[in-house]
C-alpha cells in the first residue's frame, strides 16, 4: 500500500467512525418483569469542570452508608470523577493510587431497587485534584473525607484512560463502560433493577492493574420493600476487602508489581483501604444490638472468607438479595467481585475482630475491630 493509499484509508476510517458514532441510537426503554432496560447511549465530551469530584446525596466514605430518606424511587444525579492521589494504605506504604473520588476504595453509593442513576465521570488523571478542601456540601463523602482523610491523600498526576463498570447496572458494556481519555467526561444512566451489594470498578485493560491500583468501590442497592430484618437492625456499616500488589519504588513511593499481581501474591490485603483504619477507628456497637455489615470483596484476585470472631451470622443475604437468605453462618466465602449482607447479634461487651479467615490474608492486613459497649437497657 502506498503512502497516499494508506493515508486515504486512515482518513476514511475516521470519517466512518464519526458517522457510525453519530448514528448510534437508543432502541428505547422497555419494561420486562417489572424492570427497566434499554438506556440511551452514553455521551462522551469535554467540560471545563473544576468543582468537587464527588457529587450526590447518598455517597459516603467507608464505613458509613447514607440513609434513604425518600419514599419510592428517585433519579440520582451522581458524579464520581477518577483521578490520582498519593495515599497511605499502611504505615510506611504510600503509592500513587488510581482513585474514584480520591480514596481507595471509592465512595459508597446507596440507592433503592428501581432507582435511576444518571452518572457522570470526568477523567482528571492529568490534573491535580484537591480533596481535602470541599468547596460545598456536594456529598457526604467529600465532607467526611476532608474530616477524616485517613489515607493522608495528596494530589498526583498519572494520565491514563479509565472507565466505570457498575455491576449494579444492566447495560451494554461497550457503550456505557467504555474508556475515556484524560480530559474527557462520560455520562450515562442505568436503573438499579436488582437489589444487592455490588462492586463498581474500572474495566480498562489491563483490568488487573487498574483494579489493583485502586479503582473500585461499592454500590448498595436496597430492596424495594426493604429486608425483612430492617426493623431489628441497630447499626449498619460497610466494609470492603481488597488485595494490593506493591513493592518499594522510586521517590520513596511504592509501585505496582506486575509479576506479583499475575501470580496473585498480594503485598497487602486490607479492609477499607488501610491496614489500621478499623483498629484505630473501630466499628462501635453495644451488647445485645444487631449489627448489619454490607461486605464486598473487591479483589482484584483473591477470595475472602469473611468472619467475625466471637459472633455467628444470624442472617446472611448472599450477594445482598433478600431472596438469598442463609441462617447461622460462621463465615461467608466470596470470590473477587462478590458481596453479601451479614447480620449478627453482639453477644456481650468486648472486642470482636473482623477477619478474612484465610489467615495468610489476615496476616497481610485483613483485620478490623468492632468494639461493643455494655448492654443498653431502656
Amino acid at each position, binding site marked *: 500500500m*502506498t*503512502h497516499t493509499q*494508506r*493515508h486515504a*484509508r*486512515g*482518513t*476514511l*476510517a*475516521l*470519517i*466512518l*467512525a*464519526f*458517522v*457510525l*458514532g453519530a*448514528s448510534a441510537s437508543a432502541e428505547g426503554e422497555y419494561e420486562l418483569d417489572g424492570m427497566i432496560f434499554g438506556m440511551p447511549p452514553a455521551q*462522551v465530551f*469535554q467540560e471545563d469542570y473544576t468543582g468537587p469530584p464527588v457529587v450526590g446525596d447518598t455517597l459516603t466514605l467507608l464505613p458509613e452508608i447514607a440513609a434513604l430518606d425518600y419514599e419510592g424511587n428517585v433519579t440520582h444525579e451522581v458524579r464520581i470523577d477518577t483521578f490520582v492521589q498519593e495515599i497511605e494504605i499502611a504505615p510506611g506504604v504510600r*503509592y*500513587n493510587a488510581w482513585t474514584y473520588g480520591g480514596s481507595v476504595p471509592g465512595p459508597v453509593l446507596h440507592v433503592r431497587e428501581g432507582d435511576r442513576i444518571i452518572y457522570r465521570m470526568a477523567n482528571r488523571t*492529568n490534573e491535580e485534584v484537591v480533596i481535602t478542601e470541599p468547596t460545598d456540601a456536594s456529598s457526604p463523602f467529600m465532607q467526611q473525607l476532608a474530616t477524616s482523610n485517613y489515607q493522608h491523600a495528596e494530589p*498526583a*498526576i*498519572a*494520565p*491514563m*484512560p479509565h*472507565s466505570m*463498570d457498575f455491576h449494579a447496572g444492566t447495560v451494554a*458494556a*461497550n457503550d456505557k*463502560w*467504555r*474508556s*475515556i*481519555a*484524560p*480530559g*474527557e467526561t462520560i455520562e450515562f444512566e442505568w436503573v438499579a433493577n436488582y437489589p444487592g451489594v455490588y462492586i463498581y470498578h474500572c*474495566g*480498562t*485493560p*489491563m*483490568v488487573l*492493574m487498574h483494579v489493583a*491500583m485502586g479503582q473500585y468501590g461499592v454500590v448498595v442497592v436496597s430492596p424495594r420493600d426493604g429486608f425483612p430484618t430492617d426493623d431489628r437492625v441497630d447499626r449498619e456499616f460497610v466494609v470492603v476487602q481488597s488485595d494490593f500488589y506493591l*513493592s518499594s*519504588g*522510586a*521517590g520513596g*513511593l*511504592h*509501585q*505496582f*508489581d*506486575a*509479576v506479583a499481581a*499475575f501470580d496473585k501474591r498480594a503485598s497487602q490485603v486490607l479492609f477499607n483501604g488501610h491496614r489500621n483504619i478499623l483498629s484505630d477507628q473501630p466499628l462501635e456497637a453495644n451488647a445485645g444490638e444487631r449489627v448489619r455489615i454490607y461486605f464486598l470483596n473487591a479483589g482484584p484476585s483473591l477470595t475472602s472468607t469473611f468472619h467475625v470472631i466471637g459472633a455467628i451470622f444470624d442472617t446472611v443475604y448472599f450477594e445482598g438479595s433478600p431472596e438469598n437468605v442463609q441462617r447461622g453462618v460462621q463465615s461467608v466465602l466470596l470470590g473477587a467481585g462478590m458481596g453479601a449482607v451479614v447480620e449478627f447479634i453482639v453477644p456481650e461487651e468486648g472486642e470482636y475482630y473482623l477477619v478474612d479467615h484465610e489467615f495468610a490474608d489476615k496476616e497481610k492486613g485483613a483485620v478490623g475491630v468492632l468494639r461493643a459497649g455494655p448492654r443498653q437497657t431502656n
Partner: protein
Amino acid sequence: MRPALPIALASLIAGLLAGLAPAAAAERGGSQAVAIPGGTFETVLVIDEPQVEVEPFLLAPTQVTNAEFLAFVEDQPQWRRSRVPSLFATTTYLRHWGDDTDLGDVPAAAPDLPVTNVSWFAAASYCTWAGGRLPTEHEWEYVAAQGVRGDDAVAAQHFAWYSNPHASLRPVGQAPANPFGIHDLHGMVLEWVEDYQRVLPGTDDGSPFGLACGAAARLLAGNTLSDQLSLMRHVVRMNFSAATGTGTLGFRCAWDVADARVGPTTRR
C-alpha cells in the same frame, strides 16, 4: 449497513491535507530519520493473523518538539490556534502556548519538549508537510517492541513506571534509545499513529471488538507481561477522538523508503 460517506466532510479534509507541497524534509525533521529494517513480528492485537509483516520504512528518532511544530504553524497559518476549524481540533489545541506563533512561558511549551495538545488531524498534516506521514499502528508496535517483547522483567519495569511516573515532560531524546535507535516510545508522551482506531467498532477493518474489559483477552496473542504492556499503549491511544488532544499526547513522523529521496538520510 454502513451509511454513505459524508462527501462534504471528506472533501474538506482532503482539501486541508492536500496542497501541502512535498516538503524539504531535511529541514522538517526528516534529516535525522532512522532506517527501520523490515521484518515480521507477532502483534498483540490479533484481528486476522498474529504474524504481521512490516516493510522497511524511516522513522524519526524523536517526537516532534514545540519548536518544530511552531515552524509548521508559521508556514501553514490554517493550523494556528486561532484559525484551525473546530472540526479538526478542540479548544485544547496548543493551549499551553502563549499565542498563535509564540510558545510563551509555560514550562510545557519549552522549545525542546515534545509538542502536545495536538489533534490527530494536526499531527497528520504536520507529517504530510514534512514529506512523510504518521507511522501506522503496526509500525509503531514493531519498533516499540524491540528490547521489550518477550522480556517480562523489562515489561514489569514499564508497568511499575506507569504506576509511579513522577510525571513531568522532558526534552525529547534524553531517554536511552531502543535497539533501533528510537527514543521515548514508552515515556510520558503518547503518540498518534495513522490508524490509531484500527480495532474499534466501525472502522474499515470491521472488527466488532473494542478494547473493553472482556474483549481485550481475545485480541492478545499471548498472556505474557510484555504482551500486556504492548496492549496498554494501544488501549491508551485508542480512547482518543481525532480532534482531541491532551497535555501528554504528541507524535512523531515516518517516511516511506521511496520518499527518502526528498530528504531523510539514514544513519543505520
